[in-house]
């Protein structure tokens, strides 16, 4: 059937259609605001970040240690409640060098987001964070890194209490 159709429906618009005022549009800018509760597991995680420590949680059944902590083991579907302090060092699992911002506009300085496997957690258990104090071209998967913390009096109990990770 597709071969027999000459004109598929749909009317593509061009910039000229807008410049010439041919198209009518309505704009709306919502103002939305939310307050998210951290919950049981993440509240403890955030409180420990404020103390300058990374805490994970261990399943007493399958022995998996994960971070960020959560109240249920996704493999066993059993409650998790065995809290474990982890190191603030880890290994780069993967990374990117990002030149754009959230709205697709160009950033002045590239950022280096990475998945970092945290030492003390099970293999592969990582968190999303940023790398810095490193030349972007020198970052490799497998690189050892450590957290750079905000000073204690500036920490608020947020993932940003770790400013970034840097090579060890």
């Amino acid at each position, binding site marked *: 059937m*597709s*071969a027999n159709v000459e004109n598929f*429906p749909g009317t593509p618009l061009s910039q000229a259609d807008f410049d010439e005022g041919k198209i009518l549009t309505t704009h709306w800018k919502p103002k939305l605001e939310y307050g998210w509760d951290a919950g049981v597991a993440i509240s403890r*995680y955030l409180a420990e970040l404020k103390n300058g420590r990374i805490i994970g949680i261990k399943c007493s059944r399958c022995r998996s240690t994960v971070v*960020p902590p959560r109240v249920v083991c996704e493999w066993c579907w059993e409650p998790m409640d065995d809290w474990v302090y982890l190191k603030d060092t880890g290994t780069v699992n993967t990374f*990117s060098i990002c030149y754009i911002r959230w709205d697709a506009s160009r950033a002045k300085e590239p950022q280096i987001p990475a998945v970092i496997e945290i030492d003390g957690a099970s293999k*592969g258990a990582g968190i999303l964070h940023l790398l810095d104090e490193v030349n972007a071209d020198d970052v490799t*998967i497998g690189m050892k890194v450590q957290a750079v913390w905000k000073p204690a009096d500036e920490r608020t109990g947020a993932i940003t209490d770790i400013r970034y990770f840097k090579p060890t």
Partner: protein
Amino acid sequence: MAMRKVAVVGAGMTKFMRRAQETGRELAFQASRMALDSCEMTLDDIDAVALGTAPDAFDGLHMKGEYLSDGAGAWHKPYMRCYVGGGTGVFAAIQGWYHVASGLFDTCLVVCEEKMSSCMPHPQGAFLTIFDHTTERALKPNLIWIFALEMNRYMTMHGIEKKDIALVAVKNKRNALDHPCAQLAANITVEDVLNSEVLAWPVQRLDISPTSDGAVAIVMAAEHVAKRITDKPAWVRGVGWSLDTAYWTSRDLYYPKYVEYAARMAYDMAGITEPRKEIHVVEPYDPFDYKELHHLEGLLLADKGDAPRLTAEGVTARDGNMPVCPSGGMLGVGNPIAAAGLMKISEIFWQLRGEAGKRQVPGQPKTGLAQSWGDLMQVGCVMILGV
């Protein structure tokens, strides 16, 4: 499990466009009407409607299912809207399939629509809510991060270079030159891809599909109805879908295990034991060039890390042994998210019926596979059609 045979008997689609004059419901109507006309059916012949579309935040509309219901022909009929992110297009067809396979309905119209252009300045903003509000969003992520992180992990684990991956963008954009609905068809070179703007390394401008407006619809029918409607029904031989952990930073991104699970479910249902021999044409989800390769491996159609070689050797070309994205894929035809997934099913439908025109793959394919991918990059949906 007693399930009835179900066939796809009609398909329709709009052009895929950067920005369409039509509203979403107008696009949905155009595609739905075309699908029904293609098999000489009317809305009265339709027992139920399944709709797929992206989150309401894209369009700034609450309850898009309800908004699109008139265009989709859903009034006074059993109607459902489903959504699994980018996986929605094939997932919606799976919903249509079990509406009919279950015996509850004899016919189902499946409609997928997306109008991404409404979201200003860029729909990336609406995507940001996929990140965890407490542990991730404070880092001010952008959507491309997760794809770049996955692509880098895939490349590094297998020692794959960007030039090997760029061949997919070259192939698909060229295939799209033969698709009358294509938004980004082009003759480009590997060099063009490698020289395009770096967004979030390793992702560059030409590695990515565009944002699009568009709609696609298919008609599904039970065996006794399908045989009355057409002498060329495309039977649904297998379906599969699977969801992996949403803790994406704890999942090894180099291999889409959930796609393998979905594929195995579909192969089992279809009685397919050697997919590389038994699948003749493939439409894997290709919002990025590396995703086509990643998915071919998850679908067990290539060994892990070997899909780039198949591409380089022409195996996946339209006239190769296993044509992949003969439509032009999302890289070439465009990516109105839910509609792009259903476009892949309509392409397999047209290919199996020998109706794909200039895009027709040689050798009268008997079995084809469409796959979509989405949510927090951890859902895989597969449908296998056969004639």
